[in-house]
């Protein structure tokens, strides 16, 4: 077992050795520019790019002509949202998104707000799901885009994408979904799901960092975007810039492996995740699952350990790499906005840990992590005045705190 044990696979994943192997020739002997049309170096690179495009398209049920390569999901989200806002400005200026979206979506929307767009940030239900009635009610004749993520990066909750797609179609609104956490983990199909634009990135599915893609629907409807990067007119004019050929080869290979192995791998991860949860719950009282377990990525567990502050917990499990929703672990001194959007009190948000299992985690690691968590939570509860008060039957919500 190599330490620290990596349980932070929502943040990033290691490159699969099979992916790396596929990429290597494209750094050295096959170094050509995919846009070079008049010699073999260019043709070899172009062939590799087109193969990658097919592999990505296949994973999400798209046509390879609908894939636009980018530098990653942040760029894909920017291109989708700003590109639609500019292209469809005559039709309307209203965009609907959700409070638990990734910052790459939220901050893009905030940017557009300053430029005159109107943004609706839908609140979430307590289980982390979008309220579809609220979504329907939010749509106006000025609405041009709905941007709702496929699965959340903190709580792993999978949104009712198909229903959202249907609503968008009925009302003639485009639907963008940031699917970086979902692609390669659960079945995603842009046709069945009614998605018009979809963001994907390499490094969340065992591919390289610095490469991503945006699916842009070509039929029913044909989606147009205003480019956000001007230059040589690559990628059908939507995203100029010399293509990252080794990155694209890696992203493609990663998609192919994920698609092939998904049925077995998602069952394996689900079993590991469920074991981790069951062991923690059997040995620790006052633990809370954040977000619904019913609609959730198989590799995600987000749990609050009441009366134990998240950063001190991370310090005690320093041979395990996980994330916490505690304020102390972020630069902002604010606890997780995702957990707060579920209506979770700051006190429980401060005690949350996100476990993100991945392809290279083993059952022995799950057993180790569970035991370590139990030991450290128990130790810190012995140190916690809140735990003592809870055990003495004090209602903490009635205490007058001297807040700072």
């Amino acid at each position, binding site marked *: 077992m190599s330490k620290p044990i990596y349980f932070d696979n929502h943040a990033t994943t290691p490159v699969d050795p099979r992916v790396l192997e596929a990429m290597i020739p494209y750094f050295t002997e096959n170094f050509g520019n995919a846009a070079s049309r008049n010699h073999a170096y260019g043709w070899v690179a172009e062939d590799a790019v087109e193969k990658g495009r097919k592999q990505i398209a296949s994973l999400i049920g798209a046509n390879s002509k609908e894939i636009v390569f980018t530098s990653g999901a942040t760029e894909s989200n920017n291109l989708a949202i700003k590109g639609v806002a500019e292209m469809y400005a005559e039709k309307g200026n209203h965009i609907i998104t959700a409070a638990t979206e990734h910052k790459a979506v939220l901050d893009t929307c905030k940017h557009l707000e300053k430029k005159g767009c109107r943004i609706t940030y839908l609140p979430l239900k307590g289980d982390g799901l979008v309220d579809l009635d609220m979504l329907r009610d939010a749509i106006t004749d000025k609405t041009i885009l709905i941007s709702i993520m496929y699965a959340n990066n903190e709580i792993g909750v999978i949104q009712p994408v198909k229903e959202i797609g249907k609503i968008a179609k009925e009302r003639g609104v485009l639907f963008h979904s940031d699917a970086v956490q979902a692609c390669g983990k659960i079945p995603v199909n842009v046709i069945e799901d009614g998605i018009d634009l979809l963001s994907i990135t390499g490094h969340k599915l065992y591919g390289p960092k610095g490469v991503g893609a945006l699916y842009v629907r070509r039929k029913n409807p044909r989606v147009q975007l205003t480019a956000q990067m001007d230059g040589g007119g690559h990628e059908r004019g939507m995203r100029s810039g010399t293509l990252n050929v080794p990155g694209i080869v890696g992203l493609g290979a990663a998609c192919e492996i994920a698609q092939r192995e998904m049925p077995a791998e998602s069952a394996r991860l689900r079993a590991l995740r469920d074991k981790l949860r069951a062991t923690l719950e059997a040995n620790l009282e006052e633990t809370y699952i954040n977000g619904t377990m019913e609609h959730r990525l198989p590799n995600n567990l987000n749990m609050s350990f009441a*009366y*134990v*502050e*998240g*950063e*001190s917990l991370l*310090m*005690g499990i320093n041979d395990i790499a996980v994330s916490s929703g*505690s*304020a*102390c672990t972020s630069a902002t*001194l604010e*606890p997780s906005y995702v957990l707060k959007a579920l209506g979770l*009190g*700051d*006190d429980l948000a*401060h005690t949350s840990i996100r476990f993100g299992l991945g392809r290279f985690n083993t059952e022995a690691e799950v057993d180790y992590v569970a035991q370590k968590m139990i030991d450290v939570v128990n130790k810190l509860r*012995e*140190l*916690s*005045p*809140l*735990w*003592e008060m809870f055990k003495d039957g004090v209602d*903490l919500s009635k205490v007058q*705190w*001297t*807040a*700072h």
Partner: protein
Amino acid sequence: MAYSDKVVDHYNNPRNVGSMDKSRTDVGTGMVGAPECGDVMKLQIQVNSATGIIEDAKFKTFGCGSAIASSSLATEWLKGKSVDEALEIKNTDIVNELALPPVKIHCSVLAEDAIKAAINDYKTKQGAPVSAETVS
């Protein structure tokens, strides 16, 4: 974030963890912070009322490693000091001793507040009967 060796030592081997009977007149209790802010410190002192010397100190802290270390260190420093000497402990002393980074200075402030709150509680308890007599 990287922690100083001293913070890690206090976190791994916290000194003087525990609770005293807060109804005792020779015990002063200070509880500061709030759960929604991510820090709550409870610090208690037991004072020899004849000498005014703090004979024992205990803490319990909900908070990050630096908050735990700050309160653990505070209990170490309190023991053997007179109440007046204890009031001179400054948060900056804790910052220097534990090499706390700027984002963790609030932990040391909280520890100083906890010391003051505990002493205040002790003094109130000691003073209460006296002032009651004065009134009557």
